[in-house]
């Protein structure tokens, strides 16, 4: 190996850095702001700390969250890969999506029953190698061809099926605690007991069709509804769900 050659102007290094993880348990920005302020008054050291976000809620206003954090001078360098529904939203803000090798399963409890917050920055997570951090430009959609994916086996509790840039046709069930996500529409011919997220990249024209609606959560383009709020007369029926001016509309198909 020669050491006499001139050093290039830049170089990608595979070194691992460690950054702190900022785990967000709530999607209530006011609550987050409050909690953040309390924790910062307890330890000023947390300010200016570079962090990677670990977003637990399935749905959260990422732009709003970044504003809250910036106001308190938290330096966000990216977000670890979490729910696929969040990934697109994170990329749109220009943040890097980081693979967290230490992350466990992706089955997170529903928004309402999220565990109580832990102290921020309590865990240090290894950051990705630098080349990864210099992530490719956010996917803008349209680059890959739109596809329709057929899936014929049950999506079981703890599993997640994400159809990037396409529709999903599922001829089996979605178990409670399972999650199906598509950038386009969802067609579910088995019983839907888990979560269904259509229009994951923000397509407000996306729809959810299912043969028996018993979902824990449904969402289209970020507008969501949990089981308790889904109209009771739609339960266990064949239903179409669409978005009408930021409101989810349920229509029985039978």
């Amino acid at each position, binding site marked *: 190996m020669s050491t006499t050659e001139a050093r290039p102007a830049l170089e990608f290094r595979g070194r691992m850095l460690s950054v702190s993880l900022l785990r967000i348990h709530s999607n209530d920005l006011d609550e987050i702001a409050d909690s953040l302020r309390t924790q910062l008054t307890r330890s000023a050291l947390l300010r200016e700390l570079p962090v990677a976000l670990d977003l637990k809620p399935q749905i959260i206003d990422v732009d709003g969250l970044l504003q809250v954090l910036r106001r308190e001078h938290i330096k966000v360098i990216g977000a670890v890969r979490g729910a696929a529904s969040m990934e697109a939203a994170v990329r749109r803000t220009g943040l890097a999506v980081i693979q967290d090798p230490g992350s466990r399963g992706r089955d997170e409890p529903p928004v309402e029953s999220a565990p109580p917050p832990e102290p921020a920055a309590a865990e240090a997570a290894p950051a990705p190698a630098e080349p990864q951090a210099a992530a490719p430009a956010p996917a803008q959609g349209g680059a890959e061809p739109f596809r329709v994916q057929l899936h014929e086996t049950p999506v079981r*509790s703890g599993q997640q099926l994400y159809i990037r840039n396409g529709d999903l046709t599922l001829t089996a*069930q979605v178990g409670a605690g399972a999650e199906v996500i598509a950038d386009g529409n969802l067609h579910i011919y088995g019983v839907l007991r888990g979560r269904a997220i259509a229009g994951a990249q923000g397509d407000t024209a996306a729809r959810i069709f299912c043969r028996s609606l018993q979902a824990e959560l449904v969402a289209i383009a970020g507008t969501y509804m949990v089981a308790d709020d889904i109209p009771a007369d739609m339960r266990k029926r064949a239903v179409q769900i669409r978005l009408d001016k930021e409101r989810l509309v349920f229509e029985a198909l039978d």
Partner: protein
Amino acid sequence: MAKIIVVTSGKGGVGKTTTSASFACGLAKRGHKTVVIDFDVGLRNLDLIMGCERRVVYDFVNVVHGEANLKQALIKDKRIENLYVLAASQTRDKDALTEDGVKKVLDDLAKDFEYIVCDSPAGIEKGAFLAMNFADEALVVTNPEVSSVRDSDRVLGLLQSKTVGAKAGQPPKEHLVITRYSPERVQQGEMLSIEDVKDILAIPLIGVIPESKTVLNSSNAGTPVILEDNADAGQAYEDVVARFLGEDRPLRFVSSERKGLLSRLFGD
């Protein structure tokens, strides 16, 4: 070719070990050379239920680590010809098993046995994964209650995606075993019905084992319940084995008809 069968559930305490012991006994009783392995390292109790706990010298972990050979570690059942037990270690920690080590032991056993029954620990961590990883078939044990069914759904997902078979395009064949079933409690709405459970898990049902006091008593006595004469639960396990081997048998002990005078007098 030996067949590897995992008995698994996700949730703890649902009856995996009870099922493993009776199922292995049933296969051996029908003349099939069978070994049952305790994968629950650190919490061994298969040997207790099989009644061979006082004859354990070497265990599964010893064999995996090359500290003993299979001949030394296999415990021959005293009641049934063709039945062997490979006990778990109580003193080792959960990480004592390795994927390569387990594979080698299973390969060696496959040369000699027709059926290898793997009693899985609860959970979905490494121990449970190693127990299912090489399985050809799976008995998924579920109690008729929501949390147990949910965990079983989760285990089914792992069987279908993470096992050696699944990765090679041949996932383990799944069978549903509903245990601790109580028709009275289903009627009172305190338990899920057989139909509910089948509907949620969407795999074929191979048997329903009724809730029975005999199970605890026979476990304490070191006798797998299938060997008890006149026990509902034992006969239900007998049916499971028969169905597993291809026989067609109607479900028994699933309706809550009143007990006859005789059975009330003599107990079940």
